[in-house]
């Protein structure tokens, strides 16, 4: 059997099935997406002020992917992400405080100030890292799925990576083994159109990235990554396939990042135009959900305003917490090198 397709096409094509999410569920999605958006705005600001160092890759525009996906997971599932990981961490339930403090390099950060923006971890939530080498965490996730199968648990391992990673060897090697060994894994490609400054059409001989699953007899799906309901239902199907049948899935989420690859490139002007960014902003995941909720009378203007205020306060608190937190002790340089210390 060739890789089966259950397509819910993005970008102007069919939207997902009619959302059946409850008002409460919608509010959770909206709150998380707004939190991520505002968190990232503030992270960018803190970076510009020199309070966040190193590389910093923002998730603005892609929020529906992390939020819709995490909602489909169980608390004992395993998650890995690339270095663009703030949104995934927050959607998984890491606090804004612990993530912001990590960006600030503080001892109270989720990785105790040793990982930074690209290496957010919270083992207690099964959030096993932002990883800094493109494609490097794809086999790791298959290894976690292998462990779940080995132990005969029904845990699922989920991997988030950008579309540029589908051209690297570890992606192909892993998809082959995941399908061959029937591992309970979900591979989520966040296709935001650009690997750093290289447009997909200049990097990939094939634009339908989900089709890469055909080579490995793996089920695939193209998903409108701007619609949180569509994301949720696609990940629900993939997780069920993994949990009940121990089979992997490749999901291509069509999305867009509004900001530069990292803090060191402009949102537009070099590899893409302002008009293009503006066009994609028309299908903003937060606006789409707000429109749905307002139309369904789940929320009104006052409710939206209150939600915004909550999120602003939460991020403000996180920034204050991060600023006031201590740096790691000097001795921390030498700890965690090996299990027993140095």
């Amino acid at each position, binding site marked *: 059997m060739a890789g089966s397709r259950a397509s819910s096409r993005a970008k102007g094509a069919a939207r997902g099935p009619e959302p059946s999410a409850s008002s409460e569920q919608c509010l959770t999605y909206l709150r998380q997406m707004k939190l991520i958006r505002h968190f990232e705005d503030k992270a960018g600001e803190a970076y510009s002020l020199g309070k966040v160092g190193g590389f910093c890759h923002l998730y603005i525009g892609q929020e529906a992917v992390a939020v819709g996906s995490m909602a489909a997971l169980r608390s004992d599932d*395993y998650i890995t992400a690339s270095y663009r990981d703030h949104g995934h961490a927050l959607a998984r339930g890491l606090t804004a405080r612990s993530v912001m403090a990590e960006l600030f390099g503080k001892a109270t*950060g*989720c*990785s*105790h*100030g*040793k*990982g930074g923006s690209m*290496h957010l*971890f*919270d*083992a207690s939530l099964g959030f*096993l*890292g932002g*990883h*800094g*080498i493109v494609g*490097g*965490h*794809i*086999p*790791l*996730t*298959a*290894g*976690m*799925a*292998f*462990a*779940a199968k*080995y*132990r005969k648990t029904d845990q699922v*391992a989920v991997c988030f990576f950008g579309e540029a990673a589908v051209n690297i*060897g*570890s992606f192909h*090697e*892993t998809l*082959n*083994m995941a399908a*061959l*060994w029937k591992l309970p894994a979900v591979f989520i490609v966040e296709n935001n159109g650009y690997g750093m400054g290289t447009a997909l059409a200049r990097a990939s001989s094939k634009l339908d990235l989900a089709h890469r699953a055909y080579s490995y007899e793996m089920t695939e799906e193209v998903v409108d990554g701007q619609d949180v309901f569509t994301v949720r239902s696609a990940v629900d199907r993939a997780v069920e396939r993994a949990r009940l049948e121990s089979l992997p899935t490749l999901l291509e989420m069509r999305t867009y990042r509004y900001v530069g690859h990292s803090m060191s490139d402009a949102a537009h002007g070099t590899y893409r135009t302002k008009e293009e960014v503006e066009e994609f902003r028309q299908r903003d995941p937060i606006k789409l959900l707000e429109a749905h909720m307002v139309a369904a009378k789940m929320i009104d203007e006052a409710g939206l305003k209150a939600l915004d205020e909550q999120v602003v306060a939460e991020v403000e608190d996180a920034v204050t917490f991060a600023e006031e937190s201590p740096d790691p002790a000097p001795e921390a340089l030498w*700890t*965690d*090198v*090996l*299990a*027993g210390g140095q």
Partner: protein
Amino acid sequence: MPLLTYRDALNEAMREEMARDDRVFLMGEEVAEYDGAYKVSRGLLKEFGPLRVVDTPIAELGFAGIGVGAAMVGLRPIIEFMTWNFALLAIDQIVNSAAKMRYMSGGQVGCPIVFRGPGGSALQLAAQHSQSFESWYAHIPGLKVLTPGTPADAKGLLKSAIRDDDPVVFIEGEMLYNVKGEVPEGEHLVPIGKADVKRAGSDVTLVCYSKTVTVALKAADQLAAEGINAEVVDLRTIRPMDTETVLNSVGRTHRCVVVEEGWSFAGVGAQVVDVIQQYAFDELDAPVLRVTGADVQMPYNKQLERAAKADPAKVIAAVKRVLYLA
């Protein structure tokens, strides 16, 4: 004590540890149905089944990463590379994932994994299949690097490696698999980071590891016939290095030659020399010399290959130089 080959000693270590701990599994190319490219995993598939002895496609980067991911969530993988030459394809997972995980997660996520397979020079396998990479891995904080030179050490170190909570690079001597030696039965553990004086002597210290243990011992035998008593210190573990044993020996002999298979530039011996010059400078009666592989790509031709490798004659010549006899 039973006489075992180095190969069977490794096999026994894996068999005992797999029986002892069901989190331990073996994964790699040809490890299961083929019984191992070098037969190190002979019989393990039959005994432990396909869940725990896993044949992989030829995809070093992928299966090394799968091992790391499994270790991150509590299994204890043994990842076999058919040879360390092929592990170059997987080095991103060894260096950027396995070695970094504990540190960059702030101590939350460890990586108890063993990467093992044969390394060092072989017989007429030419440039791509006959190389020593221990200094590369020893450069990396977060990794332990083990290089047993005898069957007993092979068993005892592999058992310790499998039980260790950190990623271990375990480099077997490709030319040692058929070497026989006495190997203790059952619970035989060699501590990681502990060198071993393989032969006591008073005139010169020969520091060696893996296959060069045999080279150094042969050289010591021949030197003894000339009245020169060489002490042979087998490092066994490259990182963390047992500098104490090396310094104690040099403190008694005042002369040292390091014997290694790898290339000279930034090699393991350079690290040994650095330790000696820092901590035993006043003990030295001669500069420390190194016998290394020739600084060239390994040739195929038998005579050229022989000239490229460390051998007893080169060790003897170096010893005579540090004794000012030549």
